[in-house]
Structures are given as structure tokens and as C-alpha cells.
């Protein structure tokens, strides 16, 4: 019987940037057991030598020519912005550093 502890769920929630309540964390942890059991069925078969499929159709080499096409106007680009300033997206202070 697989399971996830509340702490493990909390780690995943942090990775996924979702601030879950204590109730949610505990609730998910308890549900995960049966969900993981159900999906763990994929490990039942011997899959040695079986290739993984990541694309259902056998397409390759789909490219576009290096040509510039019109962009959105800044108004369009910023149309959904929760906050903007000087034609840029305004976001609260960023704590972490860039990669």
C-alpha cells in the first residue's frame, strides 16, 4: 500500500507553488494512498525493452522559417496584467535569484 505523508505532500505543494491549508495537506495525504495504488499498476508488467511513447504520431522535424511576423501590441500584451508600470508587468518583490 503506497502512501504519502503530510510532509511529503507539503514538499510537493511547495514545488508546485500552491499554499495549501493544513486541512488540505492532511486530506490529500490520506487520499493519495489509494490513488497511488491505482496508478502504481503501471509497474506490474515487465516493461524491459519497451520504448516509451511521448508523441502519439510519428512526426519529426517540424520547423518554421526564421521570419519575423507582427507581435502583439504592448496594450494587447499587457491587457491581462494584474498590475503594470511603464509598459512593463509589475510584480511584487522577487525573493529568489534567477537561474
Amino acid at each position, binding site marked *: 500500500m503506497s502512501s504519502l505523508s503530510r510532509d511529503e505532500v507539503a514538499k510537493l505543494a511547495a514545488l508546485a507553488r500552491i499554499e495549501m491549508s493544513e486541512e488540505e495537506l492532511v486530506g490529500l495525504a490520506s487520499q493519495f494512498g489509494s490513488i497511488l495504488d491505482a*496508478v502504481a499498476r503501471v509497474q506490474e508488467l515487465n516493461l524491459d525493452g519497451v520504448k516509451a511513447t511521448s508523441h502519439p504520431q510519428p512526426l519529426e522535424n517540424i520547423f518554421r522559417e526564421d521570419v519575423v511576423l507582427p507581435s502583439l501590441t504592448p496594450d494587447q500584451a499587457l491587457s491581462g496584467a494584474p498590475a503594470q508600470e511603464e509598459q512593463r508587468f509589475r510584480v511584487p518583490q522577487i525573493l529568489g535569484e534567477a537561474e
Partner: protein
Amino acid sequence: MINKTAAEMSSALASGEVTSVALTKQHLERIADVDKKVKAFLHVDSESALAQAASVDADRAAGKALGPLAGVPLALKDVLAQEGVPTTAGSKILQGWKPPYDSTVVAKLKSAGVVILGKTNMDEFAMGSSTENSGYGPTFNPWDLTRTPGGSSGGSAAAVSAFEAPIAIGSDTGGSIRQPAALTGIVGVRPTYGAVSRYGLIAYSSSLDQAGPFGRTVLDTAMLHEIIAGHDPKDATSLNVPVPAVVAAAKSGDVKGLKIGVIKQLQGKGYQAGVLARFNESLEILSSLGAEIVEVDCPSFEYALAAYYLIAPSECSSNLARFDAMRYGLRTGEVDGASAESVMNSTREAGFGREVKRRIILGTYALSSGYYDAYYGSAQKIRTLIIEDYKKAFTQADVLVSPTSPITAFKIGEKSEDPIAMYLADVATIPVNLAGICGMSLPAGLADEDNLPVGFQIMAPAMQDQRLYNVGAALEAALVLKWGGHLISKAPALGGAK
């Protein structure tokens, strides 16, 4: 005219019997009448719809050449971007967002002169099988308003089933067009993966998603299919091949000499008696029409559900990362001194519903280092086995069949506390998505025990979508003969004129 088929409406428009504006008005009135009970629509665009209709009427009057569905109204699942129109994907996190661009599907609909009535309700980000996961409340099944219409395209299916629109667009990642079609007694098709552009389709699981058509008849569905399918250079997974001749196939309906494969794994235990009864009757009908019924064995299908519930959540955990309150959508938690990180965290907590959060966490887990091979990696290998099983089966039969859903429409709230019970609703539809092939559900009758619609599923190899329409048309014609009319004519009146 709302009871007519889209094909009949098309003729009426062409002959001048009715204008598109009048037709559109009738549908808007029907929506006003019944949608407070059905709740199929999130956003009705009366002004714009009437303007589109007027434009088509003007073109027609000026003698311009128009496509077959020009001037016919349609309901659009809120998963497709439509410029300037609220598009939510059924989520609070996109409440109020108006895309600055059209999805390719919408662009094609507009080119074809189809009148878009509005955006329909759906399970949030297409995750669900009942439309109960919508951030805006559920949609109700026109056949029984205490029951779900299925999902995730429940709103589109209900709209067509309730005569609010003759045709609709949905999306199908694990059965989200076919299953609601089955539960609401209409036709729904999940086209071959890559046949319909995903540009502008808000992504749930990229390697499984496809937009597709709903209609009350096989022919209506085919007409819509032809409009939305086609290569799109803006979608790198789009197939660059001609659209299969689905309308011609829908008009032909000839199954003589065809081999029809019944999938051993998709029947039996867990399938409602009434569902199996209608399924077997349909097989007998097809047999009587000259088809040969064979049984095919697809052993890997037992693992399809497990593979799907690893692949789809994994892809969605990544696809939904962009909803972070920085560039569009909801932003909460912006108190003094709040950081971008905390605003992201609080927004995603507030904006995503339970099921979406559940799948994001599951997907994050399945992709994590140390777990990738056991979960996501294995699921991708199961996918290969499913593709191989289908390949083998299609050497034994021209199309494969099964009941679309093991059960008929369930009560609102019945499965919403049991995720796994809900996931089982898609057990028969999921293999099609994993393999990237096409599938159709059409009405096979009502289950004896509850008088609720049962769907018959047809599957065909990739890019052989016309086979679905051919076999579907044959079965439909025979059933209509048997019932003295389409099944949908038996649907409740809902208190409005029908």
C-alpha cells in the same frame, strides 16, 4: 426551428426559409428559457452572436458563396481562446480574462460563418468527468436535472442535448467529448490526435488533448468536424494531411463486409446491465446490416487508466505552472511586504479547485527525481503497449467498438467525494487518447433500469476518422428507424417549447 438538425437548418438558411438572425434569436430565447435549469453556458454573447448572424445574412443576400454551416449557431467550450470574450477554462484563476487572440478552431469557425452563441461550462481545466469540478458550479443533465451531463465538456453536451444549440465544440483528453455525449444522448467525436489544431486550446495534457465536434446527428457532427480539422503551422503536433472525407462517409453509412471488433477488456464487470444490453443490441443491428462481429484482445488496456492518471497529471502540472498571477488572471494575497513567491502561492491556492490541485500534486510527484522511471516513465511504456494492441486489433477489424461509458448519468454529488470512482467513468474512452487515434460516441438507446441515455463507442485508426462516421451513420439510421425518430426527441421538454 431549434428541434431541427444543423443540416436541416443549413438547408433552410440556403433556401431563405429562415434568416440566421431569426435562427440565432430562437436559440437565444431557448437559452433564456432553460439555461437557468441546465446551466450549460458560462457566458452568452447575444450582441456579438446577432452581429455575426446579421453579417452572414448580408453575405448571403449579396450572393456570396457560403459554407454549409454558415449562419448556424454553435456553443463553444470555454477551453478555447476567443479574442475579446471571457475565457475561463472553468477556473476561477482565469475569471475575467479576455484573450488578445483567437484559437485556430475559433478562427476557422468564424471563417466558416458559424455563429458562436457563447462559452460553455466545463470541469476546471478539463479535469473531470461530470462538470462538477467547474469553478462556476455544475451543469445539469437535460435528461434528468438531478444528474450530471458527464464531463469535462458537460456544458457543450448539455447545450446540444437541451436544444440550446444544434452543434457544439468540446475537447477530449480522456473521453471528455465522448462520455458527455453518451450521458446526454447525442453524438460526440474525438478526432485523431493532430487532426484539429491545439493552438489556443488551453492545455490540460498536451499529448492527449484534442478539440472535437458535438451534434445531435452523425451528419451534423461530420459537417462541424470538416470545418475545424486541418493542418496548422502554429501547432507543431498538427498533421499535414488532407481532412478525411467525413461528411461523405456520414452520408454513406454502409457497413456491408466490414469487420467490427469488440474489445474484450472493455465490457463485463463494472458495466451497467442496461448499458450492456443496448450495446449488444447495436452489435446485432450492425450484424444484420452486413458487418461481421469479431472479438479482439487488448490486454494492455487494463493498465490504460493507471497510465492516463500518470501522464495527464504530469503534463498538466507543467502546463498549469503559467498561472502564477504575474501576467494575467487572478492575483490574491498582495498585502504589504508580500513577495512574488507568496502571491503566486496564495493565488494558485485560491484560484485552483480541489481536483486540479490533486492532479498537479500527483503530476509533480510522478515527475520527481527518483520517481520518474517508476511512474511517468512506466506510463509512457504502457502507452507503447496500448498502441501496439490497437495496431494488432486493427489488422483484425476495420473499427473497434465498446460501450462509451460503463454507467449512465450519475447523480450530482454521487462521485464527487471519491476521485477513483470518478476516474473509472473514463475506463473505456481513455485508450483512444493514449494511442492518439479517433473515437465517436453515438446514442444507442436508453438503459432499461433508469431510462437514461447509453452511448455506443466506435474507434478507428489514426486519420481514418471517416470510418467512425460511416459505421455511426449506418447504426444511427437503423436505430432511428427502430425508434421512429432520433433518441433526443424523447428528451424532457424542460418546461420550454421544444
